[in-house]
């Protein structure tokens, strides 16, 4: 067993255990913090797959952005005076059956298929290559992503803002 294998199994264990906690924990805050470890584990998997830039992006956007948003959401949608923020699960038995069948089919399909295998050509300047491809081959998508982020920003502010009623304006 090489060091690569050992690191892979460590990160896989982190992802699966914290993922189970996300799915099964009764307290939402525990779920949110377990999600943190899942995201870190996935970032580690990206490093193993020689996608170092993507790992940093994963940590900055998921941990720094999305997770903070989710924790804000938890705090704003529960009464703060409630120390125990409990949640419940429904339809556990049919969901287990569906997930078991789906996961089994997925695993069978993925592992029985002969995927294209090629020796990876590793480069030691990932950010340079990635940046070049992003603004040469994927220029339109890159600009579109910027527009989508702007639309999402304006849209979420519009949706979440406080509605002004006529009596408010009269004052």
């Amino acid at each position, binding site marked *: *067993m090489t060091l*690569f*294998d050992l690191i*892979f199994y460590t990160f*896989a264990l982190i*992802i*699966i255990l914290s*993922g189970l906690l*996300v*799915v099964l924990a009764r307290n*939402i805050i525990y779920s*949110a913090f377990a*999600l943190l470890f899942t995201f870190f584990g*996935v970032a580690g*998997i*990206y490093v193993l*797959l*020689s*996608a170092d830039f*993507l790992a940093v992006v*994963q940590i900055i*956007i*998921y941990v720094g*952005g*999305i997770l903070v*948003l*989710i924790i*804000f*959401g*938890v705090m*704003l*949608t529960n009464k703060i005076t409630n120390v125990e923020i409990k*949640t419940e*699960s*429904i*339809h*556990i038995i049919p*969901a*287990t059956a569906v997930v078991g069948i789906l*996961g089994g089919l*997925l*695993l069978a399909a*993925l*592992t029985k298929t002969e*995927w*294209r295998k*090629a020796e*990876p050509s590793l480069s030691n300047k990932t950010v340079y*290559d*990635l940046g070049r*491809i992003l603004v040469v081959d994927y220029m339109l*998508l890159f600009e579109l*992503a910027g527009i*989508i*982020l702007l639309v*999402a920003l304006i*849209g*979420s502010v519009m*949706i*979440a803002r406080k509605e002004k009623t006529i009596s408010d304006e009269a004052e």
Partner: protein
Amino acid sequence: MSVGLYHFITLSAILFSMGIFAVLTRKNAIQVLMGIELILNSANINFVAFARYGNFGYNGQIVALFVIILAAAEAAIALAIVLNIYKHFNTVNVDEIDRLKE
């Protein structure tokens, strides 16, 4: 058997199943969102793993990058909608929200 492509896609299939399980069983809308994030992460692992072992260059990583961008936009919009739902119904349990209009 040393770690290869199949190990990575197995991990991503497990993560995907857990995400589906969270979406199906959780009552709280925010935890449904967490399940969706797990699903997106598993898809990303697949993209990067195939890009690495199939020698597809950086295309897989670019797609994963766009998935992360869209996940950020999706999380912001979804949380705004959840906050609005909480304001209207005083709950975010998805099984209690069954009216389109008051």
